[in-house]
């Protein structure tokens, strides 16, 4: 008997400093790679939208020469479409221009067509047509704090967007400005950083100004989110009203990545880096750390990972898929990409020697969408 046909395939999109690579797999062990797409442009953001029975890959692309844009593909990268007038552009009167798209976030299944984006300069955008055209969120853009938000080393950006199932509760994280929350679907915004430290400021506990690197929501506990800060790993159980440290047990409280399980309460992943003066995996030993109890304890996961790795993993260079068990993926600034089909217990190297990996996104798609994939009988 030959290979068993599967109904699902896996797509892994890898955005780098010099282009996009796309990989497909039937088992999350062997991968077929295409690319580079958008050669000589950086790809800092990717969204894979599996709603509406398709696999739409949306990418933020930025050329040093020709500027930023957003393109999408509905055929796994065989062809790309770019709206003629641009998907994301500041309206007249704002006197601002998009520098870089940092985040493309397809909303919930219940809101097909809604896609959020975060950009530099700090701004949040919302599309209702599947990511082809976005509208500037004026509530955040016109916020009186905006002039006081700063730029992290990578730029001043809204880099994390989390929307709860009802759609009313939206959290945004920005560097540097911290976490902001809207309770009215994005109309008005308030800082929600109580408990998150900003040790680099005169007041280490300011209302806003924190350098939050990434936030992610617990998929099974309403109101619970996790944050990887510039030093500090935190959890909130009350929608951001109060944050508490969950860094105990980690080898370092610095890092960029924060991932959560697609279904299971209390499960999250981080990839610690030693900082500020080093910014490499502690002692050069690369490991993912997973908690299954909402941050009370952490498990070191390094099977298949090099114990001599001196490159950082950036905030969006990691992803989980929605399979059972969930897959975990990440890439390094040294151009290595790793995949785990079992929630981080074992990793294999998918690619090596790529340019700096800026963004990784993985998704489960119908095998019928993947050329060459086995089709169920």
């Amino acid at each position: 008997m030959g290979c068993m046909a599967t109904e699902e395939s896996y797509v892994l999109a890898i955005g780098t400093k010099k282009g996009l690579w796309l990989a497909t797999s039937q088992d999350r062990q062997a991968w077929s790679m295409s690319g580079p797409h958008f050669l000589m442009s950086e790809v800092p953001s990717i969204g894979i939208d599996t709603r509406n029975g398709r696999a739409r890959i949306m990418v933020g692309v930025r050329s040093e020469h020709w500027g930023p844009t957003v393109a999408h593909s509905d055929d796994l990268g065989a062809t790309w479409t770019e709206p003629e007038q641009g998907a994301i552009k500041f309206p007249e009167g704002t006197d601002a221009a998009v520098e870089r798209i940092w985040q493309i976030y397809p909303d919930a299944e219940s809101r097909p067509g809604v896609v959020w984006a975060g950009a530099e300069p700090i701004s949040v955008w919302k599309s209702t047509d599947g990511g082809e055209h976005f509208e500037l969120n004026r509530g955040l853009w016109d916020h009186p704090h905006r002039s006081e938000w700063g730029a992290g080393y990578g730029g001043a950006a809204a880099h994390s967007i989390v929307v709860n199932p009802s759609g009313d509760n939206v959290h945004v994280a920005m560097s540097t400005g911290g976490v902001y929350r809207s309770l009215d679907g994005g109309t008005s915004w308030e800082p929600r950083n109580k408990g998150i430290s900003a040790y680099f400021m005169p007041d280490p506990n300011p209302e806003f100004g924190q350098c939050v690197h990434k936030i992610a929501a617990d998929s099974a506990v309403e109101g619970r989110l996790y944050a990887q800060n510039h030093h500090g790993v935190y959890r909130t159980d009350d929608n951001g009203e109060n944050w508490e440290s969950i860094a105990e047990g980690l080898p370092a409280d610095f890092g960029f990545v924060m991932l959560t399980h697609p279904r299971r309460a209390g499960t999250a992943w981080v990839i610690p880096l030693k900082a500020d003066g080093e910014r490499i995996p502690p002692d050069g030993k690369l490991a993912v750390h997973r908690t299954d109890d909402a941050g009370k304890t952490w498990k070191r996961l390094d099977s298949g990972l090099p114990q001599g790795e001196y490159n950082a993993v950036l905030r969006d260079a990691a992803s989980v898929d929605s399979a059972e068990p969930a897959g975990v993926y990440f890439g390094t600034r040294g151009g290595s990409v790793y995949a785990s089909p079992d929630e981080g217990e074992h990793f294999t190297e998918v690619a090596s020697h790529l340019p700096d990996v800026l963004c990784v996104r993985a998704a489960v798609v119908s095998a019928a969408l993947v050329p060459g994939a086995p089709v169920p009988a």
Partner: protein
Amino acid sequence: MADISVVLPGVLQPLAGGQSILTTPADGAVTVGFLLDSLAGDYPVLARRLRDETGALRRYVNIYVNGDEVRRLQGLETEVAAGQEVVIIQSVAGG
């Protein structure tokens, strides 16, 4: 009436239907900004590669009129005479 020619670098030619030179009829001088506005009507994606949404020329896009880069002249207000050639070249930079 004489044409003004806009010479495109190879990397941008796919955004202009594969053309390497775009021509605009002119019976007098026009500004570089006017020329780029004209391009935007026919080739909006090409126009977005050259200028951002505020209308500013992108940092590493260089436009030459009669051999001079427009930032050393009057920028987008630089006038181009009928019959002249405008050349667009990207900076040689980056690793």
